């Protein structure tokens, strides 16, 4: 299967902290890959490098064959990124926001309309899209942003804590939506510290701790390998083994 994302020895060092240390993994077409780890593990740093927001100190990553260092503009045409706890422009209406973002991704009015129609359909906000975002609940904003992140049907959608702030019902809807879109060929790179969510939604996971990607594998395989009931136990054992070593 074709690799949509190839991460090779990606490192990021801040003044004193090595936030990502030679991280390598691949994401295939139509695959949901999850980076899991505690707060401060290096998930967001890795994701931000892939989203071309920050420059790696070492290594590279290819999105659809384009380097995040050399072809960052091309990379941005192939991805969308949803940051954790992101907001939206409060003075805009939901529809206005979708129109604005569609205009950023394309100058073709017909394609933009298609993007907006798709986002309107999947966000499920109905008539509330005509209201100002300032009147939205946190869950509504998250749904709007998620629909924005997938409306262009990018080769790779990068979602940082996609269901943070959502109630159980909304979170379930979002997970289903991600799975449906993946089955249609969209690839996802998801970051979360909610291991149970990841276990349900992802095809493969990468466990990251203290900037190092410790292990990558299929959820079921990992559970069998570590004789664990769930992904939380796998995570605990992987991190403990790594610390012992």
């Amino acid at each position: 299967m074709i690799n949509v994302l190839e991460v090779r020895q990606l490192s990021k060092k801040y003044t004193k902290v090595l936030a990502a240390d030679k991280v390598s993994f691949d994401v295939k077409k139509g695959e949901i890959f999850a980076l899991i780890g505690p707060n401060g593990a290096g998930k967001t740093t890795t994701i931000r490098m892939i989203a071309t927001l920050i420059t790696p100190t070492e290594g590279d990553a290819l999105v659809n064959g384009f380097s995040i260092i050399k072809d960052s503009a091309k990379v941005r045409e192939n991805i969308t990124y949803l940051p954790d706890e992101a907001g939206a422009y409060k003075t805009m209406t939901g529809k206005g926001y979708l129109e604005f973002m569609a205009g950023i991704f394309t100058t073709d009015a017909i394609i933009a309309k298609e993007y907006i129609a798709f986002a309107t359909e999947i966000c499920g906000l109905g008539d509330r899209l005509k209201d100002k975002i300032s009147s939205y609940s946190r869950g509504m904003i998250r749904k709007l942003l998620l629909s924005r992140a997938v409306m262009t049907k990018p080769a790779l959608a990068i979602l940082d804590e996609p269901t943070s702030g959502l109630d159980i019902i909304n979170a379930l809807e979002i997970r289903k939506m991600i799975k449906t879109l993946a089955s249609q060929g969209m690839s996802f790179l998801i970051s979360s510290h909610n291991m149970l969510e990841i276990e349900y939604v992802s095809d493969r996971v990468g466990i990251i701790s203290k900037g190092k990607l410790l292990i990558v594998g299929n959820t079921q395989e990992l559970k069998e390998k570590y004789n664990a009931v769930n992904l939380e136990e796998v995570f605990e054992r992987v991190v403990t083994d790594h610390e012992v070593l």
Partner: protein
Amino acid sequence: MKFFNLFKKEVRELLTIQTIMTMLISLLAFYSIGNLMGGVVDDLEEKATEITICDFDNTEFTQGIMDTMRAAKATVKTVELKSDDYVAELKELGLTELIVIPEGFTDMIMNQNKLGEIQYFSTLDTLSTSGTISKAGSLAGVEIIQDAVKKTLLLEKYNCADERLLETSVIVNETTIVGDKSAQASATELSGYATMQGIFVPIVIFILILYASQMIISAISTEKIDKTLETLLSAPVSRISVLSAKMLAAAVVAALNAIVYMFGFRYFMDGMVGGTVEGSSDLGAIIAELGLKLQSTDYIFLGIQMFLTILIALSASLILGALAKDVKSAQSLIMPIMFLAMIPYMLTMFVDIATLSPVVRTVIYAIPFTHTFTAIDNIIFAKDALFWGGVAYQLVVLCLCMYFAVRIFTSDKIFTISLSFGKKGKKRNAGAAE
């Protein structure tokens, strides 16, 4: 007890290190400005006791007047003029004020039963109040001459003690010099009009600087805090486009404000002051003749200066906005710009910057906003070198600010730098941990 707990929490929330630092910097700024102004006022007071006289009459009576001046603790300096072109002579002697007592002055009063006439020349070269203060000495000298003549006429000639009987003792022919032009008009009245212009424009500039800065700091910091900037910069759009759009939008809004304020200013001047001027003889024509009224081209030059200042404020605010960590720190980030605008704003109202000591003058001129606050003074009094030098300096500062703003915006720093006043202090790498 519960109230005390609540009160303590509120004080802690409000009295942060940022707040304390702001207060200390304010105190330091006001102390420095106060000291500077104090020094200038002392110099002006010293200058205000100086009276320069050219006594063509040179009689016992005029010598007596000068003795009266000296008795009033004035420093009387006498000069000799070689030609009738007093304006040229004044310039050659490097004087800003001069009282000329013409030949036959005593004779006219004592023997011909005519009013005495003197000439008072003064130069108008600044809109700051220091210009008016420095003229106090010569104006007092004119009053002393009037009083002396009055007393002589009343006591020696008419033997009468009621001063009210003589309304006018001496006719004072005032000539005001502005650059190469001069006109028969009172410097006090003219400077009153000019000062009105000089007071209103700095207020507009001060408001615009703060308005534009607040606008861009809040725009950048909100985008950063809400992470809408991350969304935008991961989309297929160049960072320079995002930056330019923000700058241009803020500049357009600020320029609109500038235009509205400038129209308001014109109406204000034409309505309030213009009416007064037109009502008082032909002072309006003299103001125009001396170039004290801003012309259309002057408004364009002033507009250029204002626009440059706004752009500098915007580009500096881009850098400051990028340092915001949260809403509270974003609010504090306006402080450096506020101080840099407040110092020249207050100084230029009271002091002619050109008269300050070289070190202080250099420091004040190093603040880019100073050149806009002095712009109207420089335009009216044709201080072209200062005006265009200021524009050139502002362009350099603008380029530097833009360079750093672009550097921050096109690098990781836009996401990683933040200004922290906590125990760790200094800049830190936000997001480094995650």
